[in-house]
């Protein structure tokens, strides 16, 4: 399997728990990923449309727009964007709904970072993101 150049893999972390998201961003940056964060559904959509990431890591429970609403919006505007959803036990059903909306995978909180990284790289390799880039456009 070809190694991924993490410095070119753009990840957006969308979670309203600022201390969680900012620490996760710091840890992913230490591992050479190019990472940004958003702390609400609306902010995530704004960031995505301004500078589309390759992979979105999306919390399901957020104020204003929740994760499922963000997904529904992205289905039309950014069909090639790979999404990994973050969920607690209670939102496992919502996690499954997300899978039906075409997300790449889901991870449970607290997050196993190595597992998340495997999923981010897997999502990037999954083909749709690469296809978008080869066509000269981003995931959106």
């Amino acid at each position, binding site marked *: 399997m070809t190694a991924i150049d993490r410095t070119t893999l753009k990840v957006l972390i969308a979670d309203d728990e600022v201390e*969680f998201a900012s620490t996760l961003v710091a*840890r992913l940056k230490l591992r050479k990923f190019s990472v940004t964060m958003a702390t609400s559904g609306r902010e995530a959509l704004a960031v995505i449309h301004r500078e589309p990431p390759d992979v979105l890591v999306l919390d399901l429970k*957020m*104020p204003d727009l929740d994760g499922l609403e963000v997904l529904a919006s992205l289905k039309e505007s950014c069909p090639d964007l790979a999404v990994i959803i973050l969920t*607690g*036990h209670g939102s496992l059903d919502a996690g499954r709904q997300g899978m039906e909306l075409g997300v790449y995978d889901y991870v449970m909180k*607290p*997050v196993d970072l190595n597992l998340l990284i495997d999923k981010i790289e897997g999502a990037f390799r999954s083909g749709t993101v690469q296809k978008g880039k080869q066509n000269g456009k981003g995931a959106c």
Partner: protein
Amino acid sequence: MDSATSDRTCVQVFAKISAAVSHEIKNTLAIINENAGLLGDLAQMTEESGGVPLARIRAITGTIAKQVDRSNTIMKNLNRFAHSADTCPAHGDLEETLSLVIALTSRQAAMKNVKTTLQCPPNIALSTDLIAFEALVYLILLTLYQKCASGSVLAVEVSEDLPRIVICFMIQEKDKAAGGMYTDEEQQGLADQLHATCRCEEDQIVMAFPAGLGQR
């Protein structure tokens, strides 16, 4: 509503509160987990390059301590709520009880960007079916949060109109909530069990409780 049905409502409220608490604890654990991982990352970096990033380590340990404190408060509130069912009637202080229920709904309020305020005279003692009372207040708050626009204030105000105690739940916002206020069948059933009356107006719900609920 018969007592079995209102008991069922109390169980449902307990379930909702437990689900919200478990979600919040998951979030605090996730933050602690990430910060512990970051400490590990920094330790490895320090081994490789020398020099300890003290300021960063202090910030991380501060974050961990804050989340432990947050978790502790969440579990303390759940524990107090759980013990409300120990006896019936149970005894409590009205201001403390209302503060507890408001704390138990804090995540739902935050998700809607609603601030909840409480004005209650001190030292009003309760002797009632405490868990039913807390369940009723909880359901009213959740209903009103759904009606509030983002940025609203939900004011809970207690006044004494002896021999009754009156609790007013009022939405304060620039744009009025869509539709009038209402209490649903579950809330009305609990109110009946507590011998309370309920009056719904355009921007507030007013509950009045008998003197047995409020004693000095």
